[in-house]
Protein backbone atom coordinates (compact mmCIF):
# COMPACT_ATOMS: atom_id res chain seq x y z
CA UNK A 1 0.00 0.00 0.00
CA UNK A 2 2.72 2.45 0.99
CA UNK A 3 4.81 1.41 -1.98
CA UNK A 4 1.90 2.05 -4.27
CA UNK A 5 1.41 5.48 -2.72
CA UNK A 6 5.04 6.34 -3.25
CA UNK A 7 4.85 5.18 -6.89
CA UNK A 8 1.73 7.26 -7.48
CA UNK A 9 3.37 10.28 -5.86
CA UNK A 10 6.47 9.92 -8.04
CA UNK A 11 4.33 9.54 -11.17
CA UNK A 12 2.38 12.67 -10.30
CA UNK A 13 5.59 14.62 -9.79
CA UNK A 14 7.06 13.32 -13.06
CA UNK A 15 3.95 14.39 -14.95
CA UNK A 16 4.15 17.82 -13.35
CA UNK A 17 7.82 18.22 -14.31
CA UNK A 18 7.10 17.07 -17.87
CA UNK A 19 4.31 19.65 -18.09
CA UNK A 20 6.75 22.31 -16.85
CA UNK A 21 9.13 21.32 -19.65
CA UNK A 22 6.48 21.17 -22.36
CA UNK A 23 4.49 24.35 -21.70
CA UNK A 24 7.33 26.80 -22.42
CA UNK A 25 8.79 24.61 -25.18
CA UNK A 26 5.44 24.62 -27.00
CA UNK A 27 5.39 28.41 -26.69
CA UNK A 28 2.28 28.53 -24.49
CA UNK A 29 4.19 30.88 -22.18
CA UNK A 30 7.42 32.67 -22.98
CA UNK A 31 10.59 30.86 -21.96
CA UNK A 32 12.03 34.10 -20.65
CA UNK A 33 9.42 34.31 -17.90
CA UNK A 34 8.80 30.62 -17.31
CA UNK A 35 11.86 28.57 -18.21
CA UNK A 36 11.44 24.84 -18.94
CA UNK A 37 12.17 22.33 -16.17
CA UNK A 38 15.56 21.40 -17.62
CA UNK A 39 16.86 24.99 -17.39
CA UNK A 40 15.54 25.35 -13.87
CA UNK A 41 17.25 22.04 -13.03
CA UNK A 42 20.60 23.27 -14.30
CA UNK A 43 20.21 26.53 -12.33
CA UNK A 44 19.34 24.34 -9.33
CA UNK A 45 22.56 22.38 -9.79
CA UNK A 46 24.53 25.64 -9.95
CA UNK A 47 22.93 26.75 -6.69
CA UNK A 48 23.90 23.51 -4.96
CA UNK A 49 27.56 24.06 -5.84
CA UNK A 50 27.53 27.63 -4.45
CA UNK A 51 28.64 28.06 -0.84
CA UNK A 52 26.50 31.18 -0.42
CA UNK A 53 23.42 29.09 -1.17
CA UNK A 54 24.13 26.77 1.76
CA UNK A 55 24.68 29.74 4.06
CA UNK A 56 21.31 31.15 2.96
CA UNK A 57 19.66 27.76 3.51
CA UNK A 58 21.19 27.63 7.00
CA UNK A 59 19.93 31.14 7.77
CA UNK A 60 16.41 30.25 6.68
CA UNK A 61 16.39 27.03 8.69
CA UNK A 62 17.72 28.84 11.75
CA UNK A 63 14.93 31.42 11.52
CA UNK A 64 12.37 28.69 11.00
CA UNK A 65 13.56 26.45 13.84
CA UNK A 66 14.02 29.22 16.40
CA UNK A 67 10.73 30.85 15.50
CA UNK A 68 8.87 27.56 15.62
CA UNK A 69 10.44 26.60 18.96
CA UNK A 70 9.43 29.91 20.51
CA UNK A 71 5.92 29.79 19.05
CA UNK A 72 5.31 26.19 20.10
CA UNK A 73 6.54 26.60 23.65
CA UNK A 74 4.74 29.91 24.14
CA UNK A 75 1.57 28.54 22.51
CA UNK A 76 1.49 25.45 24.74
CA UNK A 77 2.32 27.24 28.00
CA UNK A 78 -0.09 30.11 27.42
CA UNK A 79 -2.77 27.77 26.06
CA UNK A 80 -2.65 25.57 29.15
CA UNK A 81 -2.58 28.52 31.55
CA UNK A 82 -5.49 30.24 29.83
CA UNK A 83 -7.57 27.05 29.95
CA UNK A 84 -6.71 26.07 33.48
CA UNK A 85 -7.08 29.40 35.27
CA UNK A 86 -10.79 30.10 35.86
CA UNK A 87 -12.33 32.97 33.84
CA UNK A 88 -9.10 33.57 31.89
CA UNK A 89 -10.51 31.79 28.83
CA UNK A 90 -13.56 34.08 28.67
CA UNK A 91 -11.44 37.15 29.40
CA UNK A 92 -9.02 36.44 26.55
CA UNK A 93 -11.31 34.87 23.93
CA UNK A 94 -12.27 38.08 22.12
CA UNK A 95 -8.70 39.43 22.24
CA UNK A 96 -7.37 36.22 20.72
CA UNK A 97 -10.01 36.28 18.00
CA UNK A 98 -9.07 39.91 17.31
CA UNK A 99 -5.31 39.35 17.10
CA UNK A 100 -5.32 35.99 15.33
CA UNK A 101 -6.48 37.10 11.87
CA UNK A 102 -3.98 39.98 11.65
CA UNK A 103 -1.64 38.93 8.86
CA UNK A 104 1.90 38.62 10.09
CA UNK A 105 3.28 40.45 7.04
CA UNK A 106 1.35 43.56 8.11
CA UNK A 107 3.85 43.75 10.99
CA UNK A 108 6.84 44.11 8.65
CA UNK A 109 7.27 47.88 9.17
CA UNK A 110 7.16 47.33 12.93
CA UNK A 111 9.72 44.52 12.66
CA UNK A 112 12.09 46.68 10.62
CA UNK A 113 11.72 49.58 13.01
CA UNK A 114 12.53 47.35 15.99
CA UNK A 115 15.21 45.08 14.59
CA UNK A 116 16.33 46.27 11.15
CA UNK A 117 16.87 43.65 8.48
CA UNK A 118 18.16 40.78 10.53
CA UNK A 119 17.11 37.48 12.01
CA UNK A 120 15.08 39.02 14.84
CA UNK A 121 12.75 40.77 12.36
CA UNK A 122 12.04 37.45 10.69
CA UNK A 123 11.54 35.81 14.09
CA UNK A 124 8.91 38.38 14.99
CA UNK A 125 6.88 37.47 11.90
CA UNK A 126 7.39 33.74 12.26
CA UNK A 127 6.49 33.65 15.94
CA UNK A 128 3.44 35.85 15.47
CA UNK A 129 2.06 33.67 12.68
CA UNK A 130 2.91 30.26 14.16
CA UNK A 131 1.93 31.04 17.76
CA UNK A 132 -1.82 31.21 17.08
CA UNK A 133 -1.86 27.80 15.39
CA UNK A 134 -0.47 26.16 18.51
CA UNK A 135 -2.43 28.26 20.96
CA UNK A 136 -5.82 27.61 19.37
CA UNK A 137 -5.19 23.88 19.08
CA UNK A 138 -4.02 23.75 22.70
CA UNK A 139 -7.18 25.55 23.81
CA UNK A 140 -9.37 23.08 21.88
CA UNK A 141 -7.37 20.17 23.20
CA UNK A 142 -7.75 21.21 26.81
CA UNK A 143 -11.46 21.78 26.29
CA UNK A 144 -11.77 18.17 25.18
CA UNK A 145 -10.75 16.80 28.58
CA UNK A 146 -13.30 14.30 29.83
CA UNK A 147 -14.94 15.92 32.90
CA UNK A 148 -15.48 12.48 34.51
CA UNK A 149 -11.76 11.67 34.20
CA UNK A 150 -10.90 15.09 35.61
CA UNK A 151 -13.33 14.65 38.55
CA UNK A 152 -11.97 11.17 39.19
CA UNK A 153 -8.42 12.51 39.31
CA UNK A 154 -9.59 15.25 41.66
CA UNK A 155 -11.30 12.81 44.00
CA UNK A 156 -8.15 10.70 44.09
CA UNK A 157 -6.47 13.80 45.46
CA UNK A 158 -4.30 14.72 42.48
CA UNK A 159 -3.04 18.31 42.62
CA UNK A 160 -3.23 20.82 39.78
CA UNK A 161 0.19 19.90 38.38
CA UNK A 162 -0.52 16.16 38.50
CA UNK A 163 -3.88 16.65 36.79
CA UNK A 164 -2.23 18.73 34.01
CA UNK A 165 0.40 16.03 33.64
CA UNK A 166 -1.80 12.91 33.72
CA UNK A 167 -5.25 13.99 32.53
CA UNK A 168 -5.05 17.22 30.60
CA UNK A 169 -1.80 16.72 28.67
CA UNK A 170 -2.56 13.26 27.18
CA UNK A 171 -5.96 14.57 26.02
CA UNK A 172 -4.54 17.77 24.56
CA UNK A 173 -1.44 16.25 22.95
CA UNK A 174 -3.09 15.09 19.68
CA UNK A 175 -4.52 18.59 19.19
CA UNK A 176 -1.21 20.21 20.09
CA UNK A 177 0.57 17.99 17.58
CA UNK A 178 -1.81 19.10 14.85
CA UNK A 179 -1.08 22.69 15.86
CA UNK A 180 2.66 22.05 15.71
CA UNK A 181 2.39 20.52 12.25
CA UNK A 182 0.39 23.50 10.96
CA UNK A 183 2.77 25.91 12.69
CA UNK A 184 5.82 24.22 11.11
CA UNK A 185 4.50 24.96 7.61
CA UNK A 186 3.33 28.48 8.47
CA UNK A 187 6.69 29.25 10.09
CA UNK A 188 8.54 28.27 6.90
CA UNK A 189 6.27 30.41 4.74
CA UNK A 190 6.72 33.41 7.00
CA UNK A 191 10.49 32.92 7.35
CA UNK A 192 10.89 33.05 3.58
CA UNK A 193 8.37 35.87 3.11
CA UNK A 194 10.12 37.90 5.78
CA UNK A 195 13.49 37.44 4.10
CA UNK A 196 11.99 38.23 0.71
CA UNK A 197 10.37 41.48 1.80
CA UNK A 198 12.69 42.71 4.55
CA UNK A 199 15.90 41.40 3.04
CA UNK A 200 17.13 39.52 6.11
CA UNK A 201 19.71 36.93 5.03
CA UNK A 202 18.28 33.63 3.80
CA UNK A 203 16.66 31.94 0.82
CA UNK A 204 14.01 34.65 0.57
CA UNK A 205 16.62 37.39 0.19
CA UNK A 206 18.34 35.26 -2.45
CA UNK A 207 15.06 34.99 -4.35
CA UNK A 208 14.67 38.77 -4.15
CA UNK A 209 18.19 39.31 -5.53
CA UNK A 210 17.49 36.89 -8.40
CA UNK A 211 14.24 38.75 -9.15
CA UNK A 212 15.94 42.15 -9.14
CA UNK A 213 18.67 40.72 -11.36
CA UNK A 214 16.34 39.36 -14.06
CA UNK A 215 17.86 35.93 -13.34
CA UNK A 216 14.64 33.98 -14.02
CA UNK A 217 15.85 30.32 -13.96
CA UNK A 218 17.79 30.97 -10.73
CA UNK A 219 14.68 32.48 -9.18
CA UNK A 220 12.59 29.41 -10.03
CA UNK A 221 15.37 27.10 -8.83
CA UNK A 222 15.25 28.83 -5.43
CA UNK A 223 11.47 28.64 -5.37
CA UNK A 224 11.77 24.89 -6.00
CA UNK A 225 14.15 24.69 -3.03
CA UNK A 226 11.57 26.33 -0.77
CA UNK A 227 8.96 23.87 -2.04
CA UNK A 228 11.21 20.92 -1.27
CA UNK A 229 11.93 22.35 2.14
CA UNK A 230 8.20 22.60 2.83
CA UNK A 231 7.76 18.99 1.75
CA UNK A 232 10.57 17.78 4.03
CA UNK A 233 9.23 19.77 6.95
CA UNK A 234 5.77 18.30 6.50
CA UNK A 235 7.13 14.75 6.32
CA UNK A 236 9.26 15.44 9.40
CA UNK A 237 6.35 16.89 11.34
CA UNK A 238 4.16 13.89 10.50
CA UNK A 239 6.87 11.52 11.67
CA UNK A 240 7.24 13.37 14.97
CA UNK A 241 3.47 13.37 15.36
CA UNK A 242 3.22 9.63 14.74
CA UNK A 243 5.94 8.86 17.24
CA UNK A 244 4.67 11.21 19.92
CA UNK A 245 1.17 9.80 19.60
CA UNK A 246 2.17 6.15 19.18
CA UNK A 247 0.00 5.31 22.19
CA UNK A 248 -3.04 7.13 20.84
CA UNK A 249 -5.83 5.27 19.11
CA UNK A 250 -5.72 7.53 16.08
CA UNK A 251 -2.22 6.23 15.34
CA UNK A 252 -2.47 2.78 16.89
CA UNK A 253 -5.47 2.10 14.73
CA UNK A 254 -7.33 -0.04 17.29
CA UNK A 255 -10.70 0.61 18.74
CA UNK A 256 -10.17 1.48 22.37
CA UNK A 257 -13.07 0.54 24.58
Amino acid at each position, binding site marked *: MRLQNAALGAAGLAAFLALGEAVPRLGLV*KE*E*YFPPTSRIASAFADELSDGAFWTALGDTLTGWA*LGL*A*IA*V*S*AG*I*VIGVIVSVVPYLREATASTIEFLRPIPSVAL*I*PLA*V*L*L*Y*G*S*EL*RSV*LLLVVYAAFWQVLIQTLYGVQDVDPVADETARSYGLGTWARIRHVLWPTALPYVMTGVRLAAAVALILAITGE*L*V*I*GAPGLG*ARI*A*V*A*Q*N*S*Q*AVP*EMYALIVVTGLLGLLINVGARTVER*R*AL*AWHQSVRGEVAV
Partner: protein
Amino acid sequence: MRRQLVALAAGALLVTASACGSSGDSGDSDSGSSSGGTTTVKLGLIPIVDVAPVYLGQKKGFYGKRGLKLEISTASGGAAIVPGVASGQFQFGFSNVTSLLIAQSSGVPVKAVSNGIASTGVAGKDFAAIAVKNGSSIKSAKDLEGKKVAINTLKNINESAVRESVRKDGGDPDKVKFVELAFDQMPAALDSGQVDAACAVEPALATIKSQGGQVIASPMVDVAQGTTVAMYFTSTRYQQQNADVVKKFQEATAESLAYADAHPDEARQIITTYTKIPASVLAQVTLPKWPAEPNKESIEALAKLGEEDGFFKKTPDVDALLP
Protein backbone atom coordinates in the same frame (compact mmCIF):
# COMPACT_ATOMS: atom_id res chain seq x y z
CA MET B 1 9.20 9.85 24.64
CA ARG B 2 7.38 12.03 27.08
CA ARG B 3 10.61 12.92 28.84
CA GLN B 4 12.10 13.89 25.51
CA LEU B 5 9.16 16.18 24.86
CA VAL B 6 9.57 17.82 28.23
CA ALA B 7 13.24 18.37 27.50
CA LEU B 8 12.37 19.82 24.11
CA ALA B 9 9.88 22.22 25.64
CA ALA B 10 12.37 23.28 28.31
CA GLY B 11 15.02 23.89 25.67
CA ALA B 12 12.60 25.96 23.65
CA LEU B 13 11.76 28.04 26.71
CA LEU B 14 15.45 28.73 27.28
CA VAL B 15 15.71 29.88 23.69
CA THR B 16 12.73 32.18 24.22
CA ALA B 17 14.33 33.64 27.30
CA SER B 18 17.67 34.25 25.64
CA ALA B 19 16.02 35.73 22.56
CA CYS B 20 14.17 38.16 24.78
CA GLY B 21 17.32 38.94 26.71
CA SER B 22 19.35 39.80 23.66
CA SER B 23 16.77 42.27 22.42
CA GLY B 24 17.57 44.45 25.39
CA ASP B 25 20.96 45.45 24.02
CA SER B 26 19.62 46.88 20.78
CA GLY B 27 19.65 50.34 22.32
CA ASP B 28 23.38 50.81 21.99
CA SER B 29 23.66 49.35 18.50
CA ASP B 30 23.27 52.75 16.88
CA SER B 31 26.57 54.00 18.19
CA GLY B 32 28.39 51.40 16.07
CA SER B 33 30.94 49.22 17.74
CA SER B 34 34.59 50.12 17.74
CA SER B 35 37.64 48.15 18.69
CA GLY B 36 41.32 48.76 18.08
CA GLY B 37 40.74 51.96 16.10
CA THR B 38 38.29 50.30 13.73
CA THR B 39 34.68 51.38 13.78
CA THR B 40 32.11 48.96 12.43
CA VAL B 41 29.18 50.67 10.77
CA LYS B 42 26.07 49.02 9.42
CA LEU B 43 24.99 50.12 6.00
CA GLY B 44 21.52 49.36 4.60
CA LEU B 45 21.56 48.86 0.83
CA ILE B 46 19.37 47.54 -1.95
CA PRO B 47 21.30 44.90 -3.93
CA ILE B 48 21.15 46.73 -7.27
CA VAL B 49 23.57 48.20 -9.82
CA ASP B 50 23.48 51.64 -8.13
CA VAL B 51 25.46 50.67 -5.06
CA ALA B 52 28.41 49.08 -6.87
CA PRO B 53 30.83 51.86 -5.77
CA VAL B 54 30.44 50.92 -2.10
CA TYR B 55 31.26 47.27 -2.78
CA LEU B 56 34.15 48.37 -4.96
CA GLY B 57 35.39 50.87 -2.37
CA GLN B 58 35.19 48.22 0.32
CA LYS B 59 37.24 45.84 -1.82
CA LYS B 60 39.79 48.55 -2.64
CA GLY B 61 40.16 49.35 1.05
CA PHE B 62 38.91 52.95 0.86
CA TYR B 63 36.85 52.42 4.01
CA GLY B 64 39.39 50.24 5.79
CA LYS B 65 42.23 52.75 5.50
CA ARG B 66 40.04 55.28 7.31
CA GLY B 67 39.32 52.84 10.11
CA LEU B 68 35.82 51.97 8.95
CA LYS B 69 34.54 48.43 8.66
CA LEU B 70 31.36 48.18 6.62
CA GLU B 71 28.73 45.67 7.56
CA ILE B 72 26.31 45.63 4.64
CA SER B 73 22.70 44.63 5.19
CA THR B 74 20.58 44.32 2.11
CA ALA B 75 16.91 45.21 2.05
CA SER B 76 14.71 44.50 -0.92
CA GLY B 77 13.42 48.05 -1.10
CA GLY B 78 14.14 51.53 0.10
CA ALA B 79 11.05 51.40 2.29
CA ALA B 80 12.89 49.24 4.83
CA ILE B 81 16.01 51.38 4.86
CA VAL B 82 14.73 54.80 5.96
CA PRO B 83 13.03 53.48 9.14
CA GLY B 84 16.09 51.27 9.74
CA VAL B 85 18.41 54.27 9.75
CA ALA B 86 15.99 56.50 11.66
CA SER B 87 15.67 53.90 14.42
CA GLY B 88 19.42 53.27 14.55
CA GLN B 89 19.41 49.71 13.18
CA PHE B 90 21.73 50.94 10.43
CA GLN B 91 24.16 53.83 10.78
CA PHE B 92 23.96 54.62 7.07
CA GLY B 93 21.54 53.85 4.29
CA PHE B 94 20.93 54.34 0.60
CA SER B 95 17.73 55.89 -0.65
CA ASN B 96 16.37 57.91 -3.53
CA VAL B 97 16.18 61.67 -3.19
CA THR B 98 12.38 61.96 -3.17
CA SER B 99 12.09 59.35 -0.40
CA LEU B 100 14.58 61.36 1.66
CA LEU B 101 12.67 64.58 0.98
CA ILE B 102 9.40 62.87 1.97
CA ALA B 103 11.03 61.58 5.17
CA GLN B 104 12.49 65.00 5.95
CA SER B 105 9.22 66.84 5.33
CA SER B 106 7.35 64.47 7.63
CA GLY B 107 9.80 65.03 10.46
CA VAL B 108 11.93 61.87 10.17
CA PRO B 109 15.41 63.07 11.20
CA VAL B 110 17.52 62.07 8.19
CA LYS B 111 20.65 63.75 6.89
CA ALA B 112 22.29 63.07 3.52
CA VAL B 113 26.02 62.43 3.86
CA SER B 114 27.18 61.61 0.37
CA ASN B 115 26.11 61.41 -3.21
CA GLY B 116 24.71 58.08 -4.40
CA ILE B 117 24.02 57.98 -8.12
CA ALA B 118 23.25 60.44 -10.85
CA SER B 119 21.55 60.22 -14.22
CA THR B 120 23.90 60.02 -17.19
CA GLY B 121 22.19 63.16 -18.46
CA VAL B 122 22.01 61.77 -21.99
CA ALA B 123 18.48 61.39 -23.36
CA GLY B 124 17.93 57.85 -24.65
CA LYS B 125 21.10 56.61 -22.98
CA ASP B 126 20.21 56.73 -19.29
CA PHE B 127 19.87 53.91 -16.74
CA ALA B 128 16.20 54.84 -16.32
CA ALA B 129 13.74 55.18 -19.18
CA ILE B 130 10.12 55.12 -20.17
CA ALA B 131 9.86 52.18 -22.53
CA VAL B 132 7.10 50.82 -24.73
CA LYS B 133 6.62 47.56 -26.59
CA ASN B 134 8.01 47.26 -30.07
CA GLY B 135 5.47 48.64 -32.57
CA SER B 136 3.53 50.62 -29.95
CA SER B 137 1.58 53.67 -31.12
CA ILE B 138 3.10 55.64 -28.21
CA LYS B 139 5.94 57.68 -29.69
CA SER B 140 6.64 60.30 -27.03
CA ALA B 141 5.83 61.15 -23.43
CA LYS B 142 2.76 63.22 -24.44
CA ASP B 143 1.15 60.08 -25.90
CA LEU B 144 1.05 58.59 -22.40
CA GLU B 145 -2.14 60.55 -21.66
CA GLY B 146 -4.89 58.05 -20.93
CA LYS B 147 -2.41 55.15 -21.00
CA LYS B 148 -1.39 52.71 -18.27
CA VAL B 149 2.17 53.34 -17.15
CA ALA B 150 3.96 50.95 -14.79
CA ILE B 151 5.98 52.55 -12.03
CA ASN B 152 7.82 50.88 -9.16
CA THR B 153 6.39 53.05 -6.37
CA LEU B 154 3.49 55.48 -6.60
CA LYS B 155 4.02 59.02 -5.32
CA ASN B 156 7.78 58.80 -5.40
CA ILE B 157 10.74 59.84 -7.52
CA ASN B 158 9.79 57.95 -10.68
CA GLU B 159 6.25 59.31 -10.69
CA SER B 160 7.67 62.83 -10.31
CA ALA B 161 10.05 62.23 -13.18
CA VAL B 162 7.52 60.63 -15.53
CA ARG B 163 5.04 63.43 -14.85
CA GLU B 164 7.77 65.93 -15.69
CA SER B 165 8.52 64.14 -18.97
CA VAL B 166 4.84 64.29 -19.93
CA ARG B 167 4.61 67.95 -18.88
CA LYS B 168 7.72 68.93 -20.84
CA ASP B 169 6.37 67.18 -23.89
CA GLY B 170 3.22 69.26 -23.71
CA GLY B 171 0.93 66.67 -22.13
CA ASP B 172 -1.19 66.62 -18.99
CA PRO B 173 0.38 64.32 -16.39
CA ASP B 174 -2.91 64.04 -14.49
CA LYS B 175 -4.32 62.05 -17.41
CA VAL B 176 -1.67 59.31 -17.08
CA LYS B 177 -2.83 56.17 -15.28
CA PHE B 178 -0.01 55.01 -13.04
CA VAL B 179 0.11 51.37 -12.01
CA GLU B 180 2.44 50.16 -9.25
CA LEU B 181 4.62 47.27 -10.41
CA ALA B 182 8.05 45.98 -9.34
CA PHE B 183 10.84 46.69 -11.82
CA ASP B 184 11.52 43.01 -12.38
CA GLN B 185 7.93 42.39 -13.49
CA MET B 186 7.90 45.24 -16.00
CA PRO B 187 9.36 43.37 -19.02
CA ALA B 188 6.68 40.66 -18.82
CA ALA B 189 3.86 43.15 -18.15
CA LEU B 190 4.90 45.28 -21.10
CA ASP B 191 5.32 42.29 -23.35
CA SER B 192 1.90 40.86 -22.52
CA GLY B 193 0.20 44.23 -22.88
CA GLN B 194 -0.91 44.55 -19.25
CA VAL B 195 0.61 48.03 -19.29
CA ASP B 196 1.18 50.39 -22.21
CA ALA B 197 4.48 51.76 -20.99
CA ALA B 198 6.89 51.23 -18.10
CA CYS B 199 9.31 53.47 -16.26
CA ALA B 200 12.11 50.93 -15.84
CA VAL B 201 15.67 50.98 -14.55
CA GLU B 202 18.54 48.57 -15.15
CA PRO B 203 18.70 45.58 -15.45
CA ALA B 204 14.97 45.36 -16.29
CA LEU B 205 15.52 48.04 -18.92
CA ALA B 206 18.16 45.94 -20.66
CA THR B 207 15.70 43.02 -20.75
CA ILE B 208 12.99 45.24 -22.25
CA LYS B 209 15.41 46.52 -24.89
CA SER B 210 16.52 42.97 -25.72
CA GLN B 211 12.87 42.15 -26.46
CA GLY B 212 12.69 44.98 -28.96
CA GLY B 213 11.16 47.53 -26.57
CA GLN B 214 11.63 51.18 -27.48
CA VAL B 215 12.75 54.01 -25.21
CA ILE B 216 10.44 57.02 -25.69
CA ALA B 217 11.73 59.30 -22.94
CA SER B 218 14.43 59.60 -20.28
CA PRO B 219 12.57 60.98 -17.26
CA MET B 220 15.63 61.63 -15.08
CA VAL B 221 17.13 63.68 -17.88
CA ASP B 222 13.92 65.71 -18.12
CA VAL B 223 14.03 66.58 -14.39
CA ALA B 224 17.36 68.43 -14.53
CA GLN B 225 20.84 68.27 -15.97
CA GLY B 226 22.74 65.41 -14.27
CA THR B 227 20.02 64.64 -11.76
CA THR B 228 21.09 63.24 -8.41
CA VAL B 229 18.77 60.24 -8.09
CA ALA B 230 19.81 58.67 -4.79
CA MET B 231 22.09 59.43 -1.85
CA TYR B 232 23.69 57.81 1.16
CA PHE B 233 22.28 59.17 4.39
CA THR B 234 22.35 58.85 8.17
CA SER B 235 20.16 60.04 11.03
CA THR B 236 20.68 63.56 12.36
CA ARG B 237 21.26 62.12 15.81
CA TYR B 238 24.06 59.84 14.61
CA GLN B 239 25.57 62.69 12.64
CA GLN B 240 25.67 64.91 15.72
CA GLN B 241 27.05 62.24 18.02
CA ASN B 242 29.59 60.71 15.63
CA ALA B 243 30.64 63.56 13.38
CA ASP B 244 34.09 62.03 12.80
CA VAL B 245 32.70 58.64 11.70
CA VAL B 246 30.30 60.41 9.34
CA LYS B 247 33.16 62.46 7.92
CA LYS B 248 35.25 59.32 7.32
CA PHE B 249 32.30 57.61 5.66
CA GLN B 250 31.76 60.69 3.51
CA GLU B 251 35.39 60.76 2.36
CA ALA B 252 35.59 57.02 1.72
CA THR B 253 32.32 57.05 -0.23
CA ALA B 254 33.42 60.04 -2.32
CA GLU B 255 36.63 58.21 -3.17
CA SER B 256 34.68 55.04 -4.02
CA LEU B 257 32.26 56.95 -6.26
CA ALA B 258 35.08 58.65 -8.14
CA TYR B 259 36.91 55.35 -8.54
CA ALA B 260 33.81 53.51 -9.82
CA ASP B 261 33.01 56.33 -12.23
CA ALA B 262 36.54 56.14 -13.65
CA HIS B 263 36.63 52.32 -13.79
CA PRO B 264 33.28 51.13 -15.21
CA ASP B 265 34.67 47.69 -16.05
CA GLU B 266 35.62 47.06 -12.44
CA ALA B 267 32.22 48.35 -11.37
CA ARG B 268 30.52 45.93 -13.76
CA GLN B 269 32.69 43.13 -12.39
CA ILE B 270 31.83 43.82 -8.75
CA ILE B 271 28.10 43.81 -9.57
CA THR B 272 28.36 40.08 -10.28
CA THR B 273 29.45 39.47 -6.69
CA TYR B 274 26.28 40.74 -5.01
CA THR B 275 23.59 40.33 -7.68
CA LYS B 276 22.69 37.48 -10.01
CA ILE B 277 22.48 39.58 -13.15
CA PRO B 278 23.32 37.17 -16.01
CA ALA B 279 26.54 38.11 -17.83
CA SER B 280 24.70 38.57 -21.13
CA VAL B 281 22.33 41.10 -19.52
CA LEU B 282 25.04 42.85 -17.54
CA ALA B 283 27.00 43.60 -20.71
CA GLN B 284 23.95 45.51 -22.03
CA VAL B 285 23.30 47.46 -18.83
CA THR B 286 23.71 51.25 -18.96
CA LEU B 287 25.61 52.23 -15.83
CA PRO B 288 24.60 55.38 -13.95
CA LYS B 289 27.01 58.23 -13.26
CA TRP B 290 28.72 58.26 -9.89
CA PRO B 291 29.85 61.84 -9.27
CA ALA B 292 31.35 62.41 -5.83
CA GLU B 293 29.17 65.45 -5.10
CA PRO B 294 25.38 65.69 -5.17
CA ASN B 295 23.86 68.15 -7.64
CA LYS B 296 21.94 70.61 -5.52
CA GLU B 297 19.95 72.20 -8.35
CA SER B 298 18.56 68.80 -9.38
CA ILE B 299 17.56 68.02 -5.80
CA GLU B 300 15.78 71.36 -5.58
CA ALA B 301 14.07 70.52 -8.86
CA LEU B 302 12.89 67.18 -7.41
CA ALA B 303 11.68 68.97 -4.27
CA LYS B 304 9.71 71.42 -6.41
CA LEU B 305 8.23 68.63 -8.54
CA GLY B 306 7.31 66.59 -5.49
CA GLU B 307 5.57 69.61 -4.04
CA GLU B 308 3.62 70.25 -7.25
CA ASP B 309 2.60 66.59 -7.28
CA GLY B 310 1.54 66.77 -3.64
CA PHE B 311 3.94 64.19 -2.20
CA PHE B 312 4.99 66.21 0.85
CA LYS B 313 3.19 67.14 4.04
CA LYS B 314 5.12 70.40 4.17
CA THR B 315 7.86 71.94 2.05
CA PRO B 316 11.05 69.95 2.57
CA ASP B 317 14.17 71.84 3.65
CA VAL B 318 16.79 70.91 1.04
CA ASP B 319 19.57 72.80 2.83
CA ALA B 320 18.94 70.94 6.07
CA LEU B 321 18.93 67.59 4.27
CA LEU B 322 22.12 68.06 2.30
CA PRO B 323 25.56 67.57 3.89
